[in-house]
């Protein structure tokens, strides 16, 4: 009896601190990584500005949210940001269209080397970075409203009689649900629609796509639209879940790239798997398992240290180690994407 309760406690603990956060963080990474991988598949370069694009999308959502709130449009249950997001998506798509027209299209026409695109994307990164900070400042912004918890830790304890609480934030559930919807729509689009198939064809074999009469500019534009929409969604979900801080989006770049590479560059499904792998590894490696072990170990045993593989500050190392392992073991990534 005692044992089984300990087991349940351990389970609640691990769900609360590892499983649920990994799922929602993984969804956020996955959405970002799909954007990166699509751009890579179609435009053939690693877009260093993707993190800042997420920041921009989130910022736009914040402005619309504030505007709606000031007009009294809110919902008691859902965050206002959900209503604001479609408008922010439009704005972000518009921005990306302008950027592509003014920056990237030129190099496409010139058939420049991929690395030229990367350098250009660094320029775009600088501009977006400055733009976001000029518009919204550098402070942390909490723009979530509506209900905060679906399950509160205290209520869970009372309900189950366990000593470990399990809290489920509304944003976590929203993240996972919205991610699933977005991914479902994306795959429907890529597998079933004419334009989606044309995108896959273009990513597969550019010359042959041209010979089939596929218009490259159109494919590129659609790719940017999809990538920008997903970036906004990812940025907003991350911002809702934690809080909005412009600087963190740059640092998300590494785990996002890692996700895309793990999954196989140019492979949307791979990017999603990669997102969850990276998130799960990161959170597991930096979680202190002391309490967990205490529950599961025989009575009166407690591990000496924190039982933590890496301190939280080293979460970048996790992405990097995953990158290196993929490189050594399977350079194409899980789903056999392009070899870099």
């Amino acid at each position: 009896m005692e044992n089984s309760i300990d087991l349940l406690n351990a389970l609640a603990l691990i769900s609360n601190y590892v499983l649920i956060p990994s799922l929602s963080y993984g969804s956020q990474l996955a959405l970002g990584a799909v954007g990166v991988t699509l751009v890579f598949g179609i435009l053939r370069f690693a877009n260093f500005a993707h993190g800042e694009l997420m920041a921009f999308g989130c910022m736009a959502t914040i402005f619309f949210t504030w505007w709606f709130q000031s007009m009294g449009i809110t919902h008691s249950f859902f965050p206002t940001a959900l209503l604001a997001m479609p408008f922010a998506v439009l704005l972000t798509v518009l921005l990306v269209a302008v950027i592509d027209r003014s920056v990237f299209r030129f190099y496409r026409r010139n058939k420049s080397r991929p690395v030229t695109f990367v350098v250009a994307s660094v320029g775009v990164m600088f501009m977006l970075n400055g733009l976001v900070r000029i518009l919204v400042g550098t402070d942390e912004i909490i723009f979530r409203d509506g209900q905060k918890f679906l399950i509160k830790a205290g209520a869970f304890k009372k309900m189950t009689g366990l000593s470990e609480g399990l809290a489920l934030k509304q944003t976590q559930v929203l993240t996972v649900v919205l991610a699933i919807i977005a991914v479902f729509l994306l795959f429907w689009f890529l597998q079933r629609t004419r334009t989606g198939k044309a995108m896959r064809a273009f990513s597969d074999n550019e010359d042959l796509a041209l010979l089939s009469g596929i218009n490259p500019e159109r494919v590129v534009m659609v790719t940017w639209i999809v990538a920008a929409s997903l970036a906004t969604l990812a940025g907003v979900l991350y911002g809702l879940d934690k809080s909005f801080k412009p600087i963190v989006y740059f640092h998300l770049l590494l785990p996002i790239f890692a996700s895309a590479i793990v999954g196989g560059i140019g492979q949307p499904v791979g990017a999603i798997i990669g997102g969850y792998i990276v998130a799960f590894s990161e959170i597991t490696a930096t979680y202190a398992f002391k309490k967990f072990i205490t529950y599961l170990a025989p009575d009166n045993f407690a591990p000496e240290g924190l039982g933590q593989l890496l301190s939280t500050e080293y979460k970048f190392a996790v992405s990097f180690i995953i990158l290196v392992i993929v490189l050594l073991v399977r350079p194409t990534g899980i789903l056999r994407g392009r070899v870099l």
Partner: protein
Amino acid sequence: MNYLSGEYLTGGYGGADIIRDCNIFVDKGEIAVVVGPNGAGKSTAMKALLGMLNLHKGHVFLDGQDISGMSPQQRVSQGMAFVPQNQNVFVTMTVQENLEMGAYLRRDNITETMNQVFELFPVLKEKRKQIAGELSGGQRQQVAVGRALMTRPSVLMLDEPTAGVSPIVMDELFDRIIEVKRTGIAILMVEQNARQALNIADRGFVLVTGENRFTDTGEALLANEEVRKSFLGG
């Protein structure tokens, strides 16, 4: 005036000119074959006709119209179809999707054309749900030709369609190509198997170091002593 003709085509990939004053032409309902040693510029000449090359000189005419200024996609929409020598299928897509992509520019119902392709290459119907990258070399070539036919082209250009396929499959493929020709399509084909190709050709071009060496009917080229000795292995 021939249906498709390239006149005095001169150009390359940025460095030295690969083809010089090349003349290639074909009429509807006719098979024209380009032969020549490796590196002669055969593929390059095909690309020149399709507008995938910057030409210094020369013009391309289609149905009497000068199309030299058009982009490859515009030429495709004008009825030209091309099967490249390498990487001529979408390896990550199914056979059926490959065919659909071939018909990308068409807005009408494509099922009829697809059925015609399946009639021509029954294997493809069987494997329609399979990923093209997992097909055998010969099957892949069929997908490639099928994809090109999906536009209902008036000119079909094939770059070594029989590369890497067994002699039996090659004969079959040639039979199919003759069938296609009978529907009134102009066929321009680069071939490594020169003898067999010239056998079915109405017209032949022998290209050496980017220039026309011989231009004649298929029959005449086969009969020509010099051509036989230098290019057909005796």
